[in-house]
């Protein structure tokens, strides 16, 4: 499966739609590879709206210049991280298991 098959897909929880897949979070920490450890999926970042392009303001600690940072922060407010174990299936839509936890999407 490719990243492009997952990005921007709608995400559905037990009680209805949650938003869209904005990103895939990985941790470079699995079994050691040749040069770098394996990159293992941690979870999916879900954003309430399906928008492209935040110039990198999303989820990083960059907060200046202030007017720009605030504008983008407002645009992506409400996004969260769903861990891999809380994801039930990935198809045309991403289904999330009942009782899932919302984690902060901050890096």
């Amino acid at each position, binding site marked *: *499966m*490719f*990243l*492009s*098959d*997952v*990005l921007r897909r709608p995400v559905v929880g037990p009680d209805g739609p949650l938003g869209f897949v*904005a*990103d*895939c*979070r*990985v*941790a*470079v*920490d*699995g079994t050691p*590879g*040749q*040069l*770098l*450890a*394996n*990159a*293992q*999926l*941690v*979870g999916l*970042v879900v954003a309430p709206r399906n928008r492209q392009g935040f110039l*990198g303001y*999303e*989820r*990083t600690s960059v907060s200046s210049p202030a007017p720009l940072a605030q504008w983008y922060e407002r645009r992506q*407010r*409400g*996004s*969260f*991280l769903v*861990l*891999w*174990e*809380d*994801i*039930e*299936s*990935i*198809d045309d839509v991403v289904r999330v298991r009942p009782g899932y*936890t*919302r*984690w*902060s*999407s*901050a*890096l």
Partner: protein
Amino acid sequence: MADLPKHDSPGQVLDLNLHILDRQVLDNHDVPIGHVDNVEVDGIEPGRELDPDAPPVVTSLVLNSGLWPRMFGGRPPRSRMHLVPWSAVSAIGTAIELGQPGSAFDVTWSEHWIRDQVIARIPGGRHVPE
């Protein structure tokens, strides 16, 4: 939303869209060889229930697969993609560094073709500028 709990994972944490897509890829001599256009992940079968204990891993980066699908969706068949296995990646920063020379990857074929057919045939093409 600032009060959501923060999840800590060991190791370098990356968001694929944010940190990998559209990043410059350099070979082991810092020569640029392409940009990341897609990422291949194993362990997800569409529609099948997923195994919570077996998270998928990144298997390869897809380089310069064309801008058209990036802009308008869809993707070319896997056989037409230039894949670089994750095992060749040596570091990820403002660029993605590989541990092998660029000639080891088929994404550089057009560079080699233009070099052999055009540039190297013009006098001085193989010399360092003075």
